[in-house]
Every structure is written in structure tokens, then in C-alpha cells.
């Protein structure tokens, strides 16, 4: 048996240990990326193998909290892929406008940048006060950051171009209060968002929503888990509700290919087919 076969066994055992001990289910996550990130964590904590990492995580809950930061990927920014937000403004907002009240689910919201980007967009379209954003993630540290809504001023400044490309009509700095090089989003944005812990791998649908935005989350899942997540979105959406995915994510290889129609193919915006 080669050393890479042994790493495979260790990897499966680590994921099983995490599931049984902490009820986080990474067993249907893509292995390519997860193996690399867990090996990096082992190296960082000077553990000589994934087996040693497993021993530590079983006996030391605080270590698992740290490990979770390696297992989730918090890459996000305000108005990331501005063309997506521009397409929402042009093709989705006009229809959402016709509902008396709106619910939006941002699944895998990480540190919250996408939620606030959407809230700003909805504000400029005069929809914010009738919208509730449900923002969910499995990483409690990320959720806490998202809930606080405080970001380095630099990250707001960096987003200026994206904001403009996304069709932004005001100034980003209008939305924040700046103090000590940090900017916090104003209460009128914050109070429309509910942040909570939710796993696409183990939890169920919790609300009926008009729009689900889940970007660059499915790329970390295998086919079966992608199907589970898409099933939750499908069940959660109202008839003819909208689904937005990341630029490289597709329904093509999933069981939900015919359950959605395409609104904007390059921006990965879909609409639940009414049956």
C-alpha cells in the first residue's frame, strides 16, 4: 500500500471523526481541495500525519474550532463579479418588485460581504425595507463577523470599481459609518438581515423565499451533496423564484437541470419552473 493510499484512509477517518464528534458533515465535500487544506493544517500545527490531527481534534474542541477555519474557504468581497449584480438589477429586481414582501436566502454567506452588497442593491431599488435576508453559514467565526458588519475601510475602498460596474448609483461610503479605519454598516442595512447557523449537508429548509443566492459554495461539494443543496433551494423557493450560483457552477450535471429555466446563462441566474 502506497503512502497516498494511507492518506486516503486517514482523510476518510478524519471526516468521520469530525462528523461523529462535532456533527459537521464534510464527508461529501470534494476531496482534492479538502485533503490539501487538512494537510496544511497538520503542518501548521506540527502534527506529523492526519491520524495525529484526528487524535487532537477528537480530544480538543478548541482545536476543532481552529481547524474549521481551514476547512471552509472565506474568499469573498463586496460586489464580487459585478456583472452578476448588474444582471440581478436588470432581470431579477423588476420581478421581485411585484411582491408585497420579500425573503432572500444567502446560503454560505461567509463573512457577509455578499449579504451587504445585496442589501445595498435592494436599498437603491427601494426594496430594502420590505425584504428580509436570511444569511447562513456553517462557520461560527465567519457568521459573527458577518453579523457585526464591521469591515476594514480598505475593503470598502477596494470595492469602489466593482460597485460602479454593478450599476451602483450612490457612493459606497454612504452606507457605512467610519471610525478608526473601520467601517460599520448603518443600522438600516443591518436590521434587514438575519444571520444563522445552517448546514446544506445536514439541515432542512427553514423558510419560503423568493431568491436564493449561493455563490462558490457548490464547487466544494460532490455530486450527491450538490443535489441535496439544490433540492433545499428548490423546496425553499416560491413558484418562479430565482436562484443565483457562482460563475463556474452549473445545474448541468445535477438532478435539477429541468427543474429550473435559465434567466441569464453566463451570470448563472435561474428561475424555478412552475409545474
Amino acid at each position, binding site marked *: 500500500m502506497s503512502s*497516498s493510499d494511507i492518506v486516503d484512509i486517514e482523510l476518510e477517518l478524519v471526516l468521520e471523526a469530525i462528523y461523529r464528534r462535532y456533527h459537521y458533515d464534510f464527508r461529501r465535500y*470534494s476531496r482534492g481541495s479538502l*485533503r*490539501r*487544506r487538512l494537510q496544511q493544517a497538520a503542518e501548521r500545527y506540527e502534527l506529523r500525519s492526519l491520524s495525529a490531527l484526528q487524535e487532537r481534534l477528537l480530544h480538543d474542541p478548541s482545536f476543532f474550532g481552529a481547524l474549521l477555519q481551514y476547512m471552509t474557504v472565506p*474568499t469573498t468581497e463586496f460586489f464580487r463579479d459585478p456583472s452578476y449584480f448588474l444582471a440581478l438589477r436588470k432581470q431579477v429586481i423588476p420581478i421581485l418588485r411585484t411582491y408585497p414582501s420579500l425573503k432572500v436566502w444567502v446560503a454560505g454567506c461567509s463573512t457577509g460581504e455578499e449579504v451587504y452588497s445585496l442589501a445595498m442593491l435592494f436599498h437603491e431599488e427601494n426594496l430594502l425595507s420590505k425584504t428580509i435576508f436570511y444569511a447562513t453559514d456553517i462557520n461560527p467565526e465567519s457568521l459573527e463577523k458577518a453579523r457585526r458588519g464591521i469591515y476594514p475601510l480598505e475593503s470598502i475602498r477596494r470595492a469602489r470599481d466593482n460597485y460602479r460596474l454593478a450599476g451602483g448609483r450612490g457612493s459606497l461610503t454612504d452606507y457605512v459609518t467610519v471610525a478608526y479605519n473601520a467601517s460599520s454598516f448603518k443600522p438600516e442595512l443591518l436590521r434587514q438581515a438575519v444571520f444563522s447557523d445552517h448546514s446544506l449537508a445536514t439541515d432542512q429548509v427553514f423558510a419560503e423565499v423568493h431568491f436564493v443566492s449561493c455563490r462558490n459554495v*457548490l464547487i*466544494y461539494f460532490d455530486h450527491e451533496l*450538490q443535489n441535496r443543496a439544490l433540492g433545499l433551494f428548490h423546496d425553499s423557493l416560491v413558484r418562479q423564484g430565482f436562484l443565483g450560483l457562482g460563475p463556474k457552477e452549473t445545474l*448541468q450535471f445535477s438532478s435539477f437541470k429541468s427543474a429550473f429555466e435559465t434567466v441569464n446563462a453566463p451570470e448563472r441566474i435561474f428561475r424555478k419552473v412552475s409545474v
Partner: protein
Amino acid sequence: MTAAAVDTVVARMRRRGLACVVIGASAGGVEALVKLLPSLGDGRAFPVLVIVHLPPEEPNLLPDILGYHCRWPVREACQGETVAAGTVYIAPPGYHLYLERDHSFSFGLEAPVHFSRPSISVLIDSAAWVYRAELLAVLLTGANEDGADAMKAVQESGGFTVVQEPASADSPQMPQAALKLLEPDLVLELDEIARLLALLTSGDA
């Protein structure tokens, strides 16, 4: 390196049977690939995965540019797609590209590795994990050190390694960084790498 040395290594590769070829390049890479890919012949026993550092642009024109010079179909890799023999896959700009045990692609937005996303190291390391001894990894021209550590991983898992002769490369740093870490099976100029690919895909293999 002599033609005889190339022929010996090719004979070993054929005996073992390659399951995958992965090619990494950075600065000067598009020009190098335009010279390399026309040599792919009618023996289509394995896929070729290509990763070049390029700024993220939409649409990604590289598959069209390289496809024009190649008899094999050239496509951007899709999330979840199973790798097929006789196809050239290009890593999409902006994402790390991984292979899964079931020979499908997965993507990641982890932080850049060696200042690069996609990183050559990430893809080659992942291919080494999946294909082990049945992998050929080729590292071409480049102005950084991406890929070198993964070439070492390929060698450690029993796969074949070919590095472009740095003096013949548009930018020598990347092949040089690899040569500091390992002694590859072959160090070749570009036209010799083209001949190697032609032999591996000659159709009578």
C-alpha cells in the same frame, strides 16, 4: 539530452501506460503551447491538462487559441466534469483546479499559492494524488516558482517528470526552481518535448 534518452523514457512510459499528462506554464507559456500542442497525434489514450497563468478575463480565449493549433478538442475544464481521454482541458482563470478520485474536476477559491490562482502546484499535486505513477507532469517556461514543489511530489509518487531546459525557455525561473528541487526524468528543449508528445500519441502505441 540525447534522442536516445527520450526514447528510453518513452518506452518506460508506454510499458507502464500513462493515464494523464499535465502541463504547467507561466510567462511565455501561450507561445510555448502553440508550438507544443500540434504534436498531439491520433493515439488518444489519456487526457492532457493544461494550466497557464493568465489574468482572469471573460470570455477565456485560450481554449480557442490553442484549439486552433491542436487536433484534439481543447476546452475549459468544467466543475464536476469527468476527464475524458483525447481531450485537452484548460484550467479556468481565477480558480484553483483539482482532480477527484473519480477523475472529475473540482474547483476552489482558496488563497493564491505561489501568488497564483490557478496554481500549477495545486493542479499537479492533485493529479499526482489521483494518478500516481501513471502521470506525466511537464513544467515549461515561467517567471515565478509555481509548480516546482509539485513536480517533486510527482516524482515521489512514482510519476514521470519533464522540465523545459531553462536556457531554451522564454523565462527560465520556473524550470530552474524545479531543477533545484529534483532531478527530473528528462530536461528538454521545447521541440524535444513536442517530439516526446508526438511519440506518446503516435497512434500505434
